């Protein structure tokens, strides 16, 4: 246990282990994404009211779910780096922010595209949509604050504080569709009780959600590796790597 924690603090070890994880996770993710997209777009029945336009759900819902979860990842990594001063948690937090922002943007964009045929408008100031927009601003705030500091150690700590303060908003975003009666429908997938979505549509959706989690992990690890190389550019192991030796 303790030796594992010690290793987790070592950049070369993290670089190596993330490389070997990515070697099988990346192809698996791409496979799951491809399978989910094909299944969702070609082999599920059309919705009886929305026809084929509902199929964007296979991008929209996974992106939104993982965008919210990504904030928790970022804030938890921030808390770990503040409390236990773990450098690698700091790297993870910095790496999670742009990925989360991209996913939030994807969720908003696909939502707008989906809104046009179903609601007749690209954008409404509905509770869920507005709060997702806020999530995007929270992510961008972390990215911008990190860039503003010249001392990168202080930047990491400042971003950790900011992301922890921002977590106050996350339960509000998560529950907004249940608390405020709005145009956006409440969650259809429930862990307890029956889901209000047909199994033939549910299973490809669940596959896509898993694939998006895997995609998030891949992007996070790739980002972390790039950040590690940048931070450790002057150390021996990076130089050795750059010369072509493992």
């Amino acid at each position, binding site marked *: 246990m303790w030796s594992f924690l010690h290793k987790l603090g070592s950049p070369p070890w993290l670089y190596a282990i993330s490389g070997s994880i990515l070697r099988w996770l990346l192809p698996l993710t791409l496979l799951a994404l491809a399978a989910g997209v094909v299944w969702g777009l070609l082999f599920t029945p059309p919705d009886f009211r929305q026809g084929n336009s509902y199929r964007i759900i296979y991008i929209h819902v996974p992106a939104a779910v993982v965008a919210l979860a990504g904030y928790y990842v970022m804030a938890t990594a921030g808390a770990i780096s503040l409390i236990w001063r773990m450098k690698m948690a700091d790297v993870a937090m910095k790496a999670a922010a742009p990925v989360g922002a991209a996913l939030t943007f994807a969720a908003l964009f696909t939502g707008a595209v989906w809104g046009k045929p179903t609601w007749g408008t690209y954008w409404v100031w509905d509770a869920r949509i507005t709060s997702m927009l*806020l999530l995007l601003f929270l992510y961008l705030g972390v990215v911008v604050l990190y860039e503003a*500091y010249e001392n990168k*150690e202080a930047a990491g700590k*400042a971003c950790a*504080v*900011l992301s*922890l303060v921002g977590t106050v908003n996350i339960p509000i975003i998560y529950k907004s569709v249940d608390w405020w009666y709005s145009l956006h429908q409440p969650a259809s997938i429930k862990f307890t009780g029956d889901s209000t979505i047909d199994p033939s549509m549910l299973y490809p959706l669940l596959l896509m959600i898993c694939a998006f989690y895997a995609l998030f992990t891949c992007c996070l690890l790739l980002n972390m590796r790039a950040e590690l190389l940048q931070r450790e550019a002057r150390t021996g192991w990076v130089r050795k790597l750059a010369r072509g030796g493992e």
Partner: protein
Amino acid sequence: MSAPSTTRFCLRLLRRQLVLAVRRPAEMGNPLLFFAMVVALFPLGLGPAPEALAGFAPGVLWIVALLASLLTSDNVFRGDFDDGSLEQLLLAPQPLYLGVLAYIGAHWLVSGLLLSLVSPLFALMLNLPAAAIPALVCSLLLGSAVLSLVGCIGASLTVGLRRGGMLISLLVLPLYVPVLIFGSAAVQAAVDGLPVAPYLAILGAMVSLGIALAPLAVAAGLRISIDA
């Protein structure tokens, strides 16, 4: 000379901040002037029809108050950061949490409290129904305290940066949104003749939560800024 007790320390700190503010009356008046001017822009931009203005008034007054609070929060720590007295505060034996709370309290007294007290004047200019004015003042009194608490978090994180001014609005505005929603909803409820108390209760809950947690974040932010 022995160190003053914690209560005395905080009161002295609060008094110092207030004296500093009162000695610079122009700076203290700036948010009020800003408030007045921006309120005057809305009838010019939206047209002076009284009914239309009355419809916009709850939101407009709240947004302007929010911006005025945001603009002043950038300066809360800057002077003390530049002359080094902030470092003395961090080194003081008294808990930083309470010292920070004194700074935030002074900011609220100088910006939020004053704005809330003069807001009925601007409410009348925007044709807000008189029945909604008590709700406006109460919601601003509570809400501006949350704005000060959250704004100081942003200020503590950006005080060491040269171009902090723009950045603080990017960091803090998303966090201001819940306050804006419930604050303007309280005024709107009063306009529509609905009960206001639930909204004020939520704002009060935000104030309590903010007083408990925000100074911790500010203290951490100041430590980071001083170290950087």
